[in-house]
């Protein structure tokens, strides 16, 4: 690369950044893993997910509350993290064991003589960002009108959009990231059954979509359903975000599955990232991650481990299961060829390090690690399905709650469709084929002048998936059968929580909710309802609004109550999808 590097100052320290890289990538490249502190405990924190919805906050003089996913666009950008005063941090760290959900309710603290001055002290000293008065050009609202709005520009979203466009439908695709292609923009695995990689498959789709001048909006987020319209937001990065009004007959969600941080001891330490983010850093941004561990027993864990190893990171693949039963044979062979170390049957797991992860203790083994990548389970954008009253059910094969839908992705909400990985298909060619069938189905609903090819497409897609990936086909048909019979998709979960000190296993990294907090809520206070656990602990109420913790929270609660995840239910989902600044909302013109 011959591009000139830009200078960025973080808390007085100068860093060199590639222009247009997200700030978080720039930090990682410069060896900065942790840049914030946990809200309650003040333990060091980095980020777990490198996504457009990153909940961590940085602050610059001109732009309050920056997302670390904002791109470095100007020379000399000065940002600061939200570290508190040394003394506050010291005290908080010293008593961090007591700062749990029960802390304010402890008998000394809740008494008036103690609480009154304490609350006044906290009001003055809480390490929150300060407000900033700025005067600048106000953002303007834009309107996106189409027959169908597709959310997500991965393989499914683009396949759908291209097919519908070809059939004469008006379609718009929104993508939160500034890179189109979704997971395909950085996953270089060879697709089983095809001779090219996910990345080239997706790149090809993106190129075709651009050639055919499809309506593609990157940096644009679907922000929520409201009674009087659907809201979107165009992410401005260093500038203000602008609202978008979506006017569409149908909404197709191709939002994929989000990787979720695993639950092990000290899983809040900087250096713990999810597998997709590790791949993104390695393959898209070419950051050297160093030695690492990948956790999971499924093909995405295997694919991540293989790619990281090939990119030069010594990797160990770890799983709590006795064997890598969830990995397809072809990937097992690849794992071996790549020379990835494999450890299975791990029961206890704990990360160690002072400011960032240095090693992982897995049972009796000690593994030196600069990063830990979680690929154990995923979940779809539950906030969207909750908002649009689409019921979800638990599917153990995916290890997640999935929206209930029919073969074409149709849901209980007649204007909402779901396709791709968020609907329960994991196989790329199948994502594409089913998405095209959905496009034909919707084309019929739109009365587009095409001959009915939906059924044929669907049958072919079904047969091909069954042939290639029978396990996935079975799980998928199970979801559809339940939807059609109006039954509850309800399987017991076999998900691993690695035994460790429950005070150090963070379920919700935004609000510092640990396993210990959830245990106390369920066992001591007897909160059986997930909403009450949420209100007591603050689980899912932080800046990510459950994007990292929702499924872990459900697992933890269902493990304790003995109820299955479906019966435990999800948290009530409220708009918005991402936190949106007042100045953007101000510009709404309904």
């Amino acid at each position, binding site marked *: 690369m011959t591009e000139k590097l830009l200078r960025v100052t973080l808390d007085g320290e100068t860093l060199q950044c590639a222009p247009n890289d997200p700030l978080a990538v720039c930090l990682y490249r410069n060896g900065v893993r942790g840049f914030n502190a946990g809200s309650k405990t003040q333990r060091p924190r980095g980020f777990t997910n490198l996504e457009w919805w990153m909940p961590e906050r940085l602050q610059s003089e001109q732009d309050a509350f920056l997302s670390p996913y904002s791109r470095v666009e100007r020379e000399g950008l000065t940002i600061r993290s939200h570290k508190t005063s040394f003394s506050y941090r010291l005290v908080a760290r010293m008593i961090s064991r007591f700062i749990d959900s029960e802390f304010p309710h402890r008998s000394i603290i809740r008494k008036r003589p103690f609480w009154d001055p304490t609350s006044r002290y906290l009001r003055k000293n809480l390490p929150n960002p300060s407000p*900033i008065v700025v005067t600048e050009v106000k953002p303007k609202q834009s309107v996106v009108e189409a027959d169908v709005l597709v959310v997500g520009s991965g393989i499914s979203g683009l396949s759908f959009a291209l097919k519908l466009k070809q059939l004469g439908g008006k379609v718009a695709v929104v993508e939160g990231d500034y890179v189109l292609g979704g997971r395909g923009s950085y996953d270089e695995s060879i697709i089983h059954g095809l001779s090219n990689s996910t990345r080239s498959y997706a790149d090809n789709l993106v190129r075709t979509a651009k050639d055919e001048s499809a309506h593609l909006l990157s940096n644009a987020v679907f922000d929520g359903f409201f009674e009087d319209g659907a*809201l979107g937001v165009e992410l401005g990065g260093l500038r203000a975000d602008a609202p978008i009004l979506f006017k569409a007959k149908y909404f197709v969600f191709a939002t994929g599955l989000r990787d979720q941080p695993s639950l092990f001891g000290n899983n809040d330490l900087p250096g713990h990232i999810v597998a997709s983010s590790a791949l993104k850093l390695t393959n898209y941004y070419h950051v050297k991650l160093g030695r690492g561990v990948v956790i999971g027993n499924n093909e995405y864990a295997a694919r991540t481990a293989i790619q990281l190893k090939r990119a030069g990171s010594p990797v160990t693949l770890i799983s709590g299961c006795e064997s890598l039963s969830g990995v397809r044979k072809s990937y097992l062979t690849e794992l071996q060829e790549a020379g990835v170390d494999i450890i299975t049957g791990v029961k206890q797991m704990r990360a160690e390090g002072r400011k960032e992860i240095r090693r992982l203790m897995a049972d009796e083994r000690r593994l030196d690690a600069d990063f830990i990548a979680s690929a154990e389970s995923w979940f779809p954008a539950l906030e969207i399905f909750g908002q649009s009253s689409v019921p979800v059910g638990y599917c153990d094969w995916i290890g997640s709650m999935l929206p209930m839908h029919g073969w074409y992705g149709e849901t209980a909400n007649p204007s909402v469709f779901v396709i791709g990985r968020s609907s329960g298909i994991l196989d790329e060619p199948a994502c594409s084929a089913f998405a095209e069938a959905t496009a034909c189905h919707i084309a019929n609903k739109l009365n587009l002048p095409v001959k009915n090819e939906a059924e044929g497409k669907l049958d072919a897609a079904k047969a091909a998936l069954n042939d290639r990936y029978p396990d996935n086909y079975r799980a998928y048909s199970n979801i559809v059968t339940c939807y059609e019979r109006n039954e509850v998709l309800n399987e017991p979960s076999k998900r691993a929580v690695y035994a460790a000190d429950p005070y150090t296993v963070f379920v919700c990294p935004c609000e510092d909710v640990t396993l210990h907090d959830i245990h106390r809520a369920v066992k001591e206070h*007897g909160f059986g309802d997930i909403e009450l656990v949420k209100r007591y602990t603050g689980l899912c109420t932080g800046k990510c609004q459950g994007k990292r913790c929702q499924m872990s929270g459900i697992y933890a609660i269902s493990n304790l109550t003995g109820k299955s995840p479906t019966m435990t239910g999800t948290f009530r989902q409220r708009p918005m999808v991402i936190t949106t600044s007042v100045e953007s909302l101000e510009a709404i013109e309904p």
Partner: protein
Amino acid sequence: MKTKILVIGGGIIGLSIAYNLVKKGETDVVVIDRKYVGSGSTTRCASGFRVHFFSDENTLFAIESRKRLMKAGDELKFNPLVEKIGYMWLLYDDAMLDAYRRTNVRWSQLGIAATPMTPEDVNETHPYINTEGMIAAYFGPQDGELHHDFLLFGYRDAILKGGAKILEYVDAKKLLMNGSRIEGAETSAASIEADKVVVAGGAWSNQILETAGVKVPIMPERKEMCVMEPMKHFIPGLLINTKLKSWYILQTARGEAVGSVDHPIVKETFEYGNTLEFLREYSRAAALTLPALRKARVLRVWSGFYEVTPDHSHILGRGPQWPENLYIAAGFSGHGLLMAPYAGEAMADLLLEDRTTPLMEPFRPSRFEEGKQINEELVIG
């Protein structure tokens, strides 16, 4: 199932009644809620408490309630995070200023004097507030905010420890009548026989009362709310802009800014939902009143129901023509949380000793037919 007292509604009012019953030694109490405790309006509330009302009746009731609220952390096993951060009303016209000036004379007599402030005072103490067009402000230092769920959990914990029952996910379908007597309620689970039945169903109270041929003037009014990411505490107490559709905002102990703006009701059904219209109105008022909020980020929005009566005051007790053994504690018109501690105690007195306290008397259900409505005009949101 049989019980002495059945409370229909497991919100803050229902639980406060049950808590006070248990505290007075009556443990044969069952509280039912159609969902989890607090699931109706309590958990959706803005969590402010105040003693400043225009009418004497409400003010006196709120003062009593506040006394009990202050002791809640000492009495309960949960800390309701009560913080006396004050309420600040920003005033923009002379008529409004007059009303506050007049009432403040009365407030001073009651020992809850509010502090009048000029725009210059406000500028000096709270530089973040835009004082353009403002003619004065009133600050009520006795008011504040608390954590509504924690107060509820405190009551719940004490009720359960005291031996009374709380049944969640039990929906009251119908009141059981024998002649002119109420003998319990039919629920989605099983019938519950009870000597006395208290309806504390908030905005939904009429649904159950109607099954006994009783109707009270309670109208559900949907309100939307909005919460922002935590910031340094820079908003003075609960800030109310009286000009901009009574836009208000407060910062919780954690620093999250919660608030709302009075926004025309779209529906009369009990459907929770949110509108873009509200978001726009709210953020415009926010940016006008506190320009520093423009960069603040909204976490989420939600909606809930005010249980509004014609005089914006609650209904406690029973009507003279009502079936025997039927009681009501509802219609709090947005003041449920702050009135709950005393409302529960007064209701417990009524249920156990058949004694109506003088403070509770004006809130009797029959006041609407008697033409003795309470003149309450200090309404927020």
